[in-house]
C-alpha cells in the first residue's frame, strides 16, 4: 500500500505498518490522470479508482510511458484502465488461456489476434492500494496482440504469466463515465486496438460498387435495346477544288422521328496523306433552325526506322445532341487541297458508349478513396508497432 500523501510504501500486511520504501514523488511528479477515489460507471457497473501505475519502456533508445488505473468493484472484481497517447483500454484478466500458435498470432475464444508489440516494461510509479505488492522497478515482458477493438496482453513476470483482455475506449467515454473536468488527453495517431471506422463498411462498399456497376451496365444495355439506332441518311459525294459545284452539296430531305435524341454524324473518306475540312449544317425545314458543325479529317501514314506509322484516320464521328423530330436537310461544304471522295452517314438515337465509361469511372472513385483511406488508417496503426507496414518512410518510433 502506498501512502497517497507522502509517497511512502507501506506494508499493509504488517500490523505495525513498517515503512519499507520512501521515494521522491516530487522529482518525478507523475500524477494519475484520474484521481484516486474517483468513482464512475463503465459497462453497467460502478468502479472506484483505487490504484494508479505508470509504466516505462525503452524501445530503440526512446522511452515511452503509459498509465494504468486499477478499478475496483467488490462484486465485479478488478479492471485495468490503461491510457497511452490518448487511447484508452479497459482490461480484465482472462479466465481461459489464449493459445499462441506462432509468436505472431494468438487465439482466444475463436478470435484471432495479431501480434502488435513486445516490450519490457518497468514500473516507474505506483500510488494506491493494490491487491498485490507492486514495487517501483518491477519488470515484466508485455506482449500485445490486437484484434480491434480488443487487445490480448500477456505479461510475463518472474514467477507468473498473466493474460488480460482489453477493449478500446475513447477519451470522451472515460471522461463522461468518471465525470472528470476539462477534456481528455488528445489522441495521437491511431491506437493499437482502435476500431477502424472503415472496416465495418468495407464489404458493403464492395457490394454497392458491384451493384452500381451492374446497374450502369444494365441501363446502357437497356437503352441499346430500345434506342432507334436508325440510319436516316447514307450518301456519298466527291469533292474537287477545281469543280466549284462540289464546294457545297445538299442531301435529300429526311425525317427524324420519336423523342428528341442524338444524331451520329459519320464521315468516311478516301483520304490518304491528306486532309479535308467539312462544314456540316443541319437545316430543320419546319422551324428554320440550323445546326452547324465543322470536322477535320486527316490521315497520314508512312514508314521509318521504327516501322510503319499512321497519324489520324480517314474517317470521323461526331455527335449532335438533342435533335427534335422533324424534316431535315443536310448541307455539306468541304474544303481540301486535293480531290476526295466522302460518304456521310447519319444515325438517329444511339446510346453513346462514352457516357457509360464515364459513369463507371465515377462510380469506382468513392470506393477507391474509401479503401485508400482505410489503408492509410491501418498503416498509421501499425506504424507504432513491431511490424510497421511498408509504404511509409519506414521510420520506427
Amino acid at each position, binding site marked *: 500500500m502506498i501512502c497517497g500523501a507522502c509517497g511512502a510504501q507501506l506494508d499493509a500486511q504488517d500490523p505495525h505498518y513498517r515503512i519499507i520504501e520512501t521515494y521522491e514523488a516530487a522529482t518525478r511528479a507523475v500524477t494519475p490522470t484520474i484521481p484516486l477515489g474517483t468513482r464512475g460507471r463503465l459497462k453497467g457497473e460502478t468502479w472506484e479508482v483505487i490504484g494508479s501505475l505508470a509504466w516505462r519502456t525503452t524501445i530503440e533508445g526512446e522511452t515511452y510511458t503509459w498509465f494504468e488505473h486499477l478499478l475496483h468493484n467488490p462484486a465485479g472484481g478488478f479492471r485495468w484502465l490503461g491510457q497511452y497517447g490518448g487511447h484508452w483500454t479497459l482490461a480484465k484478466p482472462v479466465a481461459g488461456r489464449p493459445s499462441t500458435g506462432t509468436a505472431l498470432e494468438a487465439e482466444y475464444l475463436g478470435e484471432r489476434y495479431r501480434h502488435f508489440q513486445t516490450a519490457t516494461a518497468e514500473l516507474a510509479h505506483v500510488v494506491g492500494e493494490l491487491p498485490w505488492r507492486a514495487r517501483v522497478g518491477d519488470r515484466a515482458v508485455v506482449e500485445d496482440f490486437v484484434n480491434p477493438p480488443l487487445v490480448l496482453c500477456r505479461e510475463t513476470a518472474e514467477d507468473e504469466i498473466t493474460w488480460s483482455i482489453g477493449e478500446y475506449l475513447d477519451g470522451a467515454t472515460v471522461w463522461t463515465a468518471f465525470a472528470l473536468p476539462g477534456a481528455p488527453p488528445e489522441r495521437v495517431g491511431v491506437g493499437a486496438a482502435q476500431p477502424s471506422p472503415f472496416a465495418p463498411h468495407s464489404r458493403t462498399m464492395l457490394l454497392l460498387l458491384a451493384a452500381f456497376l451492374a446497374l450502369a451496365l444494365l441501363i446502357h444495355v437497356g437503352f441499346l435495346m430500345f434506342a432507334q439506332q436508325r440510319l436516316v441518311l447514307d450518301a456519298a459525294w466527291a469533292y474537287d477544288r477545281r469543280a466549284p*459545284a462540289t464546294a457545297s452539296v445538299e442531301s435529300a430531305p429526311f425525317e427524324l422521328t420519336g423523342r428528341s435524341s442524338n444524331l451520329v454524324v459519320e464521315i468516311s473518306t478516301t483520304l490518304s496523306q491528306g486532309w479535308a475540312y467539312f462544314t456540316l449544317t443541319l437545316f430543320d425545314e419546319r422551324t428554320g433552325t440550323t445546326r452547324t458543325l465543322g470536322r477535320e479529317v486527316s490521315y497520314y501514314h508512312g514508314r521509318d526506322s521504327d516501322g510503319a506509322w499512321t497519324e489520324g484516320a480517314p474517317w470521323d464521328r461526331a455527335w449532335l445532341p438533342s435533335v427534335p423530330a422533324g424534316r431535315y436537310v443536310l448541307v455539306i461544304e468541304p474544303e481540301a487541297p486535293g480531290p476526295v471522295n466522302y460518304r456521310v452517314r447519319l444515325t438517329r438515337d444511339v446510346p453513346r458508349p462514352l457516357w457509360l465509361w464515364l459513369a463507371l469511372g465515377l462510380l469506382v472513385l468513392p470506393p477507391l478513396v474509401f479503401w485508400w483511406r482505410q489503408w492509410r488508417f491501418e498503416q498509421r496503426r501499425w506504424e507504432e508497432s513491431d511490424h510497421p507496414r511498408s509504404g511509409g518512410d519506414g521510420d520506427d518510433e
Partner: protein
Amino acid sequence: MTTAYGVFASLVLGALMWIHFTGWSPSPVTEEKAAPMSVRDNPGSSRSSYGGRSYTGAK
C-alpha cells in the same frame, strides 16, 4: 459513408439515364434559331443556281 456513396451513385446513374434519354452531348454545335432575313436566305441559298455564293446579307 455508404449512404453518401449511395446518393452519389444514384446521381450518376440518374445522369446516365437522362443523357441517354435526351441524347445530350457537349459537342461544339452552333445552333441558330433565327428567322430567315430574306427570301434569299433559305436553306438552298448556297446552291450553285444562286451563283455559287451564299447570300445571307441584308438587302
